[in-house]
């Protein structure tokens, strides 16, 4: 019976490790490598933490298993009662504290680059590409007209889209995030970006997509019964394609029943 318990308690950590090791094969992992460089740095932090945790986990479980196994074979020695060991207490308080402090310091530059406005890449703050407004239950997007700057208040020539965000690749861009009603969260898993949208605030988010593609844009804050409906997409495309997209959007928005070239109003622009 002693051995049974020993094996029983060893089975679970082993199962947990095997299970975790298998997860990526089942697609239970990141949705591919990050499309942004900053995202890769975030992933690196994640892996660093994962490695530390794994080492600690395996270490403690092996120690536990060893102790159990040894005790199972040792019928002579009696167990003895202790009030604890001061030294041990110090060791296992200080060791995690050191690790946590290390992590806190080590991740600071990533956090700074992601969040602190003064460190946003050049050109992002001055000309955000779009305002994204979360609303139960959709993402409404407002771009400035080509060649213009995004203003806080809607302008007559602004361009509108819904659930369809476009951004150029190869340069850092910024969007302004808002919420029209409740709290939502702007989540681009492929870009490793997640940011709450808070009513009454305009929150800047920057990213630099390195790769073309269609990426999911989700809401990551349970915001009401239609939360699942808040699925949009980000089209990351070459700069020229992005400019073409804006022009197409502009032509569509100015549509008056005639092809753009025939329109008096549009010619003038």
């Amino acid at each position, binding site marked *: 019976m002693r051995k049974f318990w020993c094996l029983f308690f060893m089975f679970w950590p082993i199962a947990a490790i095997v299970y975790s090791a298998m997860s990526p094969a089942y697609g239970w992992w990141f949705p591919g490598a990050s499309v942004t460089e900053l995202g890769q740095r975030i992933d690196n932090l994640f892996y660093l933490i994962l490695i530390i945790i794994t080492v600690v986990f395996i270490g403690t479980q092996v120690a536990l298993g060893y102790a159990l196994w040894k005790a199972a074979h040792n019928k002579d020695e009696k167990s003895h009662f202790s009030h604890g060991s001061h030294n041990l207490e110090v060791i296992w308080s200080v060791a995690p504290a050191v690790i946590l402090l290390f992590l806190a310091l080590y991740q600071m530059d990533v956090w700074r680059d992601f969040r602190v406005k003064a460190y946003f890449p050049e050109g992002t703050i001055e000309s955000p590409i779009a305002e994204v407004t979360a609303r139960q239950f959709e993402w409404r997007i407002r771009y400035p007209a080509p060649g213009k700057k995004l203003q806080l208040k809607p302008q*007559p020539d602004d361009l509108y889209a819904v659930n369809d965000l476009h951004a150029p690749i190869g340069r850092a861009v910024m969007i302004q995030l808002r919420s029209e009603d409740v709290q939502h969260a702007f989540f681009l898993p492929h870009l490793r970006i997640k940011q709450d949208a808070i009513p009454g605030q305009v929150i800047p988010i920057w990213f630099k997509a390195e790769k073309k593609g269609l990426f999911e844009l989700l809401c990551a*804050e349970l915001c009401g019964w239609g939360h699942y409906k808040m699925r949009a997409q980000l089209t990351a495309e070459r700069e020229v394609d992005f400019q073409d997209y804006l022009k197409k959007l502009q032509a*569509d928005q100015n549509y008056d029943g005639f092809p753009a070239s025939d329109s008096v*109003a549009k010619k003038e622009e």
Partner: protein
Amino acid sequence: MSVRWQTIVALMLASLLAGCGGDTSKARFAENSALAKQLLPKARKAVQKTLDDHFGSPLDSVAWLKLPVNYGKAEGTVKTVDGQKLSVEFNAEASDLESLTSPELTRAGLLFTSGSNAGKQVLLAKFDSKNSTFETLPGLESAPSSGDQFVAAGHFLRHGRKLYARHCQHCHGVSGDGDGTTAKYLNPRPRDYRLGVFKFTSTASFPAPIKATRDDLKRVIALGIPGTYMPSFVPMLKENELTAVIEYVRWLAMRGEIEKGLVTELKGEYSKDRSKDDGIDKSLETYLSETYPNFVNEIAGEVGEKWSGAEEEGTPIIPKKPRPQDTAESRHRGKELFLGNKAKCVNCHGPTGRGNGPMTEDFQKNPDTNETYAERGLYDTWGQPIKPRDLTRGIYRGGRRPIDIYRRIYAGIKGTPMPGNSQALSEDEIWDLVNYALSVPYDSQAPKSPKPHSVAEHSMDHGHAN
């Protein structure tokens, strides 16, 4: 792994449901009882039966080929015939076939396109997808023979119904009555499709209102209706899903209109208050067996024609001239019209476009019954109070393109008091109004605008990712 999870969850749910004993196979479309209760009970039953025969129930819907609904088609050829058992071969792609393996198809029926039964439709009793054999219900005069071609229709209906149930039903209701479970919390209410009236269409309203086109419905479903609870469904729904759900919405609308048409017809002679009349039962019986079946076909034909009319080429309103330059003069002319007696926009929208014109303060009459509403203000065709749009907000439910606003002013907004102006105003005048209407949000913004949203200065303050 996910399959296993699904099985486990399904088993858990099944064991739960088994306890409740809910029999979903008996799900029914709700009756339009406000209308139907005006009829003699027998007449009411007859209407219900007609609807059951031609539309079925939500889980067992019938593709009535008389209606201009694209049910989705799979073509095939009869291989062997054994009484009412037909063994067939589909010309369809395998992927299409997959969607054919549905119990609903059995109610969809086969339409023969060649052979002695060409042009005839027969309902199916059974469909065995593995062996591609059908069992038909009786109803064909001559037996089909090997080599006859047919069209089996209905998988769009099934696909559409599933999507509708998942995404739309809780607002728009099982039968499209706009009375789903969440509907009572919403203003404006979700659309009741059963009148067949849609607001944001590209089609004319004079001399008679034309239905919404498929493209109109698609626009609404893809872009949502800003300023209301109707959300955008793209990119969540893919192109083929949009097609299916649009057909389902049209089908529900036609069903509702046919129901209304039947009740209106029967109400003339067989209304509830005639239940005491001598010989009314006998008369109803004769009517039901002799005249009624033709009438059912007639009304279905009429409703169908209206819907297919909307799809004809050239129905969308396109002005003859493009939008003129958006100059101060044009806006000024538009403003004069807006305030003037010719267009009368001011009566509803108010002098500054805030939607507070004098008509919103008056008692209005219901144009159908000629009765005055109990409360002040405007009402829509569905009997709900409605406010003229506050044009200073720059939110356009039917779209903000100049063509959208042009169409709203030209044809009005169907189902609402907002009238069409295709007769009262010239094209130039409508364009001036468009230019003015689109400028209102920015004109009123300048002097006394509400405080802008506070801008977060320190991004660190709210920098927590959740």
